């Protein structure tokens, strides 16, 4: 087995990029789920963000404007879900699935005139002479701004959820919405804000695929990343830092199996390809013993009268 043909520097740099869309989408969904809402529409919000970001980046020539538009686009489309579940009290699972289908259709419609266009490139962050450090430089310090933004976002979410009053309120709403309501917190308003935050993050993740990872617009190009993000939140047992590890594990396995094939290592690729899902199932089984992991009110609708 000749593994020396895989360049570890390129490999690690590759999976950092592969994991970034997952990190964005999953960290948003994590916040949403911590407030007790299960939004299965991640895939739909991602693809909406992918086309909004792509279109705006192409029209304005600025990738950062594209990312901003992607966040707005994802948040706007998530309002549909917020309206259905928080105002109309519709079933969250069905509404989330509807959001995914709606997002895929809408993005295909919006994207018709953007097929085959090359988007403006978001340059790598300039770390000056630090980037010349062997190994560390090319692996960690040669990426675009959004990759670092994703990392910063995860740490921010972790700090906010764990150490701030805002985080306490978010968690209270998710653990027991009746108690939070009794304390005077506006459950519906807080959840709507969280859903919009989740939408914005998913939108950023989608735009990362269409603007940086691929970079082009193709219908349905997120191809299931949103679903992996949902699995990842469970895998991380709703904890931000575990989510980061999980995202690198998921992203790394995909890169690893492609790399192993390219250097001609005879391994059963199918097993590596399915391993993220197998790991998620195993983690779920382990978690099922510990009932405290999931937010108490997850997936339950709230109305002040109940």
């Amino acid at each position: 087995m000749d593994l020396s043909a895989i360049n570890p520097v390129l490999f690690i740099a590759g999976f950092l990029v592969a994991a970034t869309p997952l990190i964005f989408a999953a960290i948003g969904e994590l916040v949403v789920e911590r407030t007790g809402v299960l939004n299965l529409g991640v895939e739909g919000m991602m693809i909406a963000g992918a086309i909004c970001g792509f279109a705006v980046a192409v029209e304005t020539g600025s990738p950062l404007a594209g990312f901003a538009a992607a966040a707005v686009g994802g948040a706007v489309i998530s309002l549909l879900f917020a309206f259905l579940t928080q105002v109309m009290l519709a079933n969250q699972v069905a509404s989330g699935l509807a959001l995914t289908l709606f997002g895929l259709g809408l993005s295909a419609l919006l994207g018709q005139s953007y097929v085959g266009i090359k988007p403006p490139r978001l340059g790598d962050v300039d770390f000056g002479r630090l980037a010349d450090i062997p190994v560390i430089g090319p692996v960690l310090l040669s990426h675009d701004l959004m990759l670092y933004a994703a990392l910063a976002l995860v740490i921010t979410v972790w700090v906010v959820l764990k150490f701030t009053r805002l985080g306490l309120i978010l968690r209270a709403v998710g653990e027991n919405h009746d108690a939070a309501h009794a304390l005077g917190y506006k459950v519906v308003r807080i959840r709507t804000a969280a859903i919009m935050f989740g939408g914005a993050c998913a939108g950023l993740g989608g735009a990362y695929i269409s603007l940086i990872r691929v970079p082009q617009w193709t219908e349905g190009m997120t191809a299931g990343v949103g679903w992996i993000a949902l699995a990842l939140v469970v895998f991380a047992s709703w904890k931000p830092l575990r989510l980061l590890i999980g995202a690198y594990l998921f992203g790394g396995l995909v890169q690893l199996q492609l790399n192993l094939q390219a250097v001609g290592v005879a391994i059963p690729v199918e097993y590596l390809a399915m391993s993220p899902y197998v790991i998620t199932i195993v983690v779920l089984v382990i978690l099922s013993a510990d009932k405290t992991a999931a937010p108490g009110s997850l997936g339950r609708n709230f109305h002040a009268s109940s």
Partner: protein
Amino acid sequence: MKFTKLLTGATLALALAGTAMAQDKTKVGFVFVGPVGDGGWTYEHNQGRLALEEEFGDKVETVFVESVAEGPDATRVITDMALKGADLIFTTSFGYMDQTVEVAQKFPNVKFEHATGYKRADNVSTYSARFYEGRAIQGHIAGKMTKSNIVGYIGSYPIPEVIRGINSAFIHARKANPDVEFKIVWAYTWFDPAKEADAAKVLIEQGADVVLQHTDSTAPQAAAQEAGDVVTFGQASDMAQYAPFPRVSSIIDDWAPYYIARTKAVMDGTWTSTDTWDGIGPGMVAIGEITDAVPAEVKEEALALKEAIASGEYHPFTGPINKQDGTQWLADGEVADDGTLAGMNFFVEGITGDIPQ
């Protein structure tokens, strides 16, 4: 809750109104594996569908369902189409084979056409294109264009259609350049732009300066464009938006004449179960424009090869060819028969790596 009920009611009413339309049209259904905007395989099938509408106008009604997963879910989609009155249904991916045959048994009056498969019945035809003829030309250009002597190949699934393409491309790349090596990565998907782009990047990192793809999206083209000096070929569709470089040529599937002929047969009542496998000669496979990025003499050789294949004078699988393990497959001058080609499950001599089982 009342509002949601109202919405459901309205949707139901719309759906009912939709099915009560006139029945005298010939209704043709299409099941697609990717989105119609994939820019490759499904895009071309959809172009065929649109050509059908143009040809017959009011006499035909077409319906399609896109991004249908291969396997059990296809049964549901195909059954649904048959129940809604389709007279002719095209299922356009290899992985719909068993499902097409299964549904066809339940609807003996509906005609089915399955692309790239090999199972037929009284009301199930199969059709495919000899993509390997186009692969021979790609292989020739790839062998001539590579400087690193490493050609990357993104495979989708290890099925005969894909293996045939790899073998054909490899044989002709080796003829053009005896030092060429193929690196093959299986993506295990027909359509996943991010993964296809990653596969292309990995191959490029491993030294490939020509990347062939047997997946449906244009993502590998974008990855090659990023890399700057990597040659690609359009797959299933022209992908001309990436011409003149990195895309230097392409294999284009032209399904329109076949779809029109088969629909006509249903209208006339002359439809019978057939097995169609056409190539460059009859026009089911076209070679997209070879751009100026290819040296003139290479372009000339490629076009000569195309002519020879089109006229039937040359078959891309002509002996002597050995299998990967060194045993003889075709003797000198012997031409592969269609049966072996249709079920091809081995690499030819010189390709490294195994076919995943």
